[in-house]
């Protein structure tokens, strides 16, 4: 079914640089966001993706511009990799009018119609059925594109997961379901969320082809995602991909992390996907030290530019509070 996955063919230098750039951009951008949060430039909830970058980068590279993407409230990385301007994302987290959601959504609700990025959804598992519907529309309109839906392992306990998986399989619509299994739902470990902790097995209950992959290994994720995406495109059927990863930071800025040992976190940090990928590139000699440095400085600039942009952005006038509660009728 699946063609030879891209990533088994060695990475071209351009590809390598692009991927590394994305990985580092997501990391540095979020580190900066955390900093800005402590400076109270950003408020509300802030959910960092740090440690899980290989999942968004590895999966999204398998998508095309016309595909739909839906993510959770932990979506800065997905938004950046999908190509939403970092400045607009930072401005959104600042709550400014120039943000990608007009400043109204903040960190949890990044939206962008140009890149077909349907959020930024903060009701756990609330977006899975929407993903099925988007794919159904594509099927009905004979558009050759898939819908990629990211969610956590905690979301799989919700009835919404069960219903969405069954509908996708019954209707045979092209949805790539991506579970970001970071082992915790807030403070609830996998074994307290699911009686069946082998998540991949759950696909069988719906007759959905499933696979799982080491979510800390970018190349592995790319390969698994390419195969999965290819399967979805060629069959028009849903696929369930489990990416096993880990969240290095707290669930949100309100989390004292009472539920896990520091040592566990340290263990996982040894598998940090960025140095891992970097070393591989160095070994393969598709990347030079100079190029790496360039990427670092370039990313640093991009992130700083994003902050500088956000700082200059404006506040939505209070008079516009209720604007877009309903569509504006052209009269």
């Amino acid at each position, binding site marked *: 079914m699946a063609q030879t996955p891209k990533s088994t063919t060695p990475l071209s230098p351009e590809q390598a640089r692009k991927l590394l750039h994305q990985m580092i951009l997501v990391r540095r951008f979020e580190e900066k966001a955390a900093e800005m949060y402590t400076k109270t430039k950003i408020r509300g909830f802030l959910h960092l993706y740090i440690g899980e970058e290989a999942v968004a980068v590895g999966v999204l590279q398998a998508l095309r511009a016309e595909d*739909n993407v839906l993510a959770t409230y932990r979506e800065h990385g997905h938004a950046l990799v999908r190509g939403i301007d970092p400045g607009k994302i930072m401005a959104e987290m600042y709550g400014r009018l120039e*943000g*990608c*959601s*007009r*400043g*109204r*959504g903040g960190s949890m*609700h990044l*939206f*962008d*119609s140009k890149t077909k990025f*349907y*959020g930024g*959804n903060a*009701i756990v598992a*609330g*977006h*899975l*059925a*929407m*993903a*099925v*519907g*988007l*794919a*159904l*529309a*594509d099927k*009905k*309109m004979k558009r050759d594109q898939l819908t990629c839906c990211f969610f956590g392992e905690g979301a799989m306990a919700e*009835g*919404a997961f069960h*219903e*969405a998986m*069954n*509908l996708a399989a*019954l*209707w045979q619509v092209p949805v790539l379901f991506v579970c970001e299994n970071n082992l915790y739902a807030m403070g609830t470990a996998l074994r307290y969320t699911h009686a069946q902790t082998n998540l991949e097995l759950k696909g069988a209950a719906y007759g959905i082809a499933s696979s799982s992959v080491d979510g800390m290994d970018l190349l592995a994720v790319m390969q698994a995602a390419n195969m999965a995406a290819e399967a979805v495109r060629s069959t028009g059927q849903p696929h369930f991909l489990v990416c096993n990863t880990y969240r290095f930071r707290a669930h949100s800025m309100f989390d004292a992390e009472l539920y896990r040992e520091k040592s566990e976190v340290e263990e996982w940090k040894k598998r940090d996907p960025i140095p891992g990928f970097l070393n591989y590139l160095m070994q393969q000699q598709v990347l030079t030290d100079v190029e790496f440095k360039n990427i670092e400085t370039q990313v640093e600039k991009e992130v700083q530019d994003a902050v500088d942009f956000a700082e200059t952005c404006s506040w939505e006038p209070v008079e516009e509070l209720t*604007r*877009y*509660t*309903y*569509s*504006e*009728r052209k009269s």
Partner: protein
Amino acid sequence: MLTYRECLKQAIQEALQGDERVFLLGEDVGRYGGAFAVSKNLLQEFGPERILDTPLSEAGFVGAGIGAALGGMRPIVEIMTVNFSLLALDQIANNAATLLHMSGGQFNVPLVIRMSAGIGKQLAAQHSHSWEPLFAHLPGLRILSAGTHQDARYMLAPALLDPDPVIIFEYTSLLNLEKELSEAADAVDISKASVRREGKDISLITYGTGVYKALEAAEELATAGIEAEVLDLRILRPLDDDTIMASVSKTNRALLVEDASRSVSISSEVSTRIMEKCFYELDAPVARLCGAEVPIPYPKHLEDAAVPQPAQIVSMVKKILQHD
């Protein structure tokens, strides 16, 4: 003469014929013919692509409807009855109603949800809900109530033209009722309430199953020389204040009638708005006749006792008028 059921069916047929982006999905809308035979034979007429039977997954297929609407389709989602709608309420409130505003105007949701509602068939506590008030509280939604055959027949078309989520309440107890349809008013306005009967003495303000009950009561009152105006709210959110206040300013009295239970109801909102906008024109306090605050029991005599009846409307009006 057309039954209310036939009106609903013709509206769906017309919608499916007029726009190929429209499709109907819900439990048993196809092979079964619709729980109340509203969509009978539509599967045969339009095929499984347009008439989609769903599993028992209210949250799932309503959410899928939202997604399909985002994707450019014009889904008509049928929730078999309002009694099951709470299973999908998170999808409606947190997704359908908020996406446009939350995305800064980028993503609107042109979704229509139809559901059969109300009491009257002795279906007992879990199957006799009148939950219009719950939905009417939620910003971002447009809530319609088809209390007449005219609206059952012509409300769907404008609802489908609306760029935002619209929920249409239909009434199980009216399905077999036959009425004459006046010729199709072109493009029914789904922003205005409607005066179903003119009167000068008191405004009977109602919706849904209350409309025909109020009209019946008004006839009876007329024999006693009392001219009651019957106002059908039709649009429960956003309410059409102008039409309401115009009527009350004319009659100076109002009785609000609805099947939904009394506390935090449509009537309480209407009464409050009248207080806010017509206080000095009132000759008597606005009164309510609402459903009893109780799970609806199965026996007919208790079911009837749980919601306003025409006779109660009549006596209540007489009491209000004696008031001065």
